[in-house]
């Protein structure tokens, strides 16, 4: 009983630390004073400003578009990559591939960004939407691989054998046995890639150009003049959107688990 109590206190403490900055920011988005340190009065002025700033809205849209496309494409590549690593026979090669995959995850964003900048300019690719999308795909693929691979290793090989015994061909094995089993891993990879892409600053900073920009880069360059509270308002809106998305995801997965019994994993 006593231990439980302390555990709860600890948990509450952790959540306070995690959520205080967000609520602090959220609170001041309603400040008519215009600064982050004296709350003068309630206003919706900053929200109005966000919706009137078409450039800012465009940047938000760009950020979302890049995030969705890049995580989708990298999920496809990542799943194929994970399957390839899983089916490699030689243990040595498998380890080598995994290590190479992990190196990309650990290596600093600044280095990835700088090398992409050099690569794109050498290849004559105009910096902009395409370059940002390509680099986001590139840093997301290893993450998806890492999320999908454990699921594959969890899968019992006897399932595949059984399916083959029952006369399934390779395509059937893939689509009816393997993919359904690793679906939770695929979704996890997709959402991981999505969040990575949404909040990436360092890589994007190097490869944006020609009028294309994402939110993190934009906020950073606005910081020189002191961040306007409209950024707070925008962050609040994005935070609420994520809460809604997470709730939706949770609801779908609950419903799904009742219907198919496959989301419980």
């Amino acid at each position: 009983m006593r231990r439980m109590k302390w555990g709860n206190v600890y948990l509450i403490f952790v959540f306070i630390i995690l959520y205080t900055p967000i609520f602090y920011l959220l609170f001041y988005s309603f400040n008519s004073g215009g600064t982050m340190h004296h709350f003068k009065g309630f206003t919706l002025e900053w929200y109005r400003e966000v919706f009137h700033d078409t450039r800012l809205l465009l940047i938000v849209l760009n950020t979302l578009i890049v995030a969705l496309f890049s995580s989708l494409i990298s999920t496809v590549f990542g799943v194929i990559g994970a399957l390839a690593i899983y089916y490699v026979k030689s243990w040595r090669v498998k380890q080598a591939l995994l290590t190479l995959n992990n190196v990309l995850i650990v290596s600093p964003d600044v280095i990835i960004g700088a090398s992409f900048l050099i690569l794109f300019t050498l290849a004559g690719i105009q910096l902009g939407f395409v370059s940002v999308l390509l680099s986001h795909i590139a840093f997301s693929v290893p993450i998806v691989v890492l999320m999908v691979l454990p699921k594959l290793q969890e899968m019992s090989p006897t399932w595949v054998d059984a399916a083959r015994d029952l006369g399934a061909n390779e395509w059937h094995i893939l689509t009816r046995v393997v993919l359904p089993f690793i679906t939770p891993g695929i979704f996890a990879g997709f959402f991981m890639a999505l969040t990575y892409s949404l909040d990436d600053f360092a890589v994007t900073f190097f490869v944006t150009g020609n009028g294309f920009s994402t939110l993190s880069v934009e906020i950073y360059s606005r910081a020189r003049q002191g961040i306007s509270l409209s950024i707070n308002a925008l962050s609040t809106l994005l935070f609420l959107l994520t809460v809604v998305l997470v709730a939706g995801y949770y609801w779908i997965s609950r419903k799904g688990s009742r219907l198919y019994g496959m989301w419980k994993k």
Partner: protein
Amino acid sequence: MRKLVQSFIAVLVVAFLLLYVSNRLNEAEGDAGDHTLVVYNWGDYIDPKLITMFEKQTGLKVIYQTFDSNEAMMAKIAQGGTTFDVAVPSEYAISKMKEEGLLLPLDHAKLPNLKYIDPRFLNLSFDPDNRYSVPYFWGTVGIVYNRDMLGGKKITSWNDLWDKTLRNQILLVDGAREVMGMALNSLHYSLNDTNKAHLEEAKRKLDALTPNVKAIVGDEIKMLIANEEAAVGVVWSGDAAEMIAENDKLDYVVPKEGSNLWFDNMVIPKTAKNIEGAHQFINFMLDPKHAAQNAEYVGYATPNAKAMKYLPKEMIEDKRFYPDFNKIGHLEVYKNLGKRMLAYYNELFLQFKMHRK
């Protein structure tokens, strides 16, 4: 599998929907296509209404991009891969960019509004005859201080900072040239001094200041001083204007021994595609009415002599941000000291930063 495919199609639909909305928004903003002009400027350093006005007037679509430091901007331009038609670097960056061949010469015939610029701001050492650049905003380096926290004491000179009563009260910006310049000025030397004996002397003088220095900080200096964490700060005039807007107990002074005068200037980088449009844009910004509107929005001082007419009186009469003509004599522009001398400045500044109280 079906679930997977369904989800992916749903995500794709959402993504394309967003893409459609963004394209529509883009079109609503103006005509996309060949008639674009890319402006590369500091964050929040132009009145957005002026961009709209310019677009209406010329039919060009402006893509406004921002950077946060001269170095980042230069790296992007040197690397190529992007089009920038107009950029706004500071003066020392201009001499560097000139050396590296990153700038295109200006066609003065296409900039008739150049005549409105105050002659004090033309033909300066970093760009003789304004072959590559025209001034955009200017300002000084000075001291911002909190009257209440100093008990009504006034600060007028750099040497006031060495006062014993200011112990642990001063914040400095983290810039080698700013801080070394301050020490050189306090000794009545030029802030472009290259005499090593003078520089050593300035460094020793800085060491004597250490007990008074609370911290050497970056951009957060604005917030710290506005929140009264320290009574005195050595800052750029634009930052000071912002702090004063937030806290009316603050005052700004350009020390009487002299100080640094800085400029941000419009240039056309070598990456420019729409050179005609770039000239149009620069000329547009040089128009007195537009310059005034911009100065009012951004809060820095305009170099446009005629624009003064359109600015509110209390703004241009504020001697702190629009110092007198005769006072300007004390102010010096940074010269490009060359790599080795700059390294020496940095070395001395680093030694000062490491000096113990």
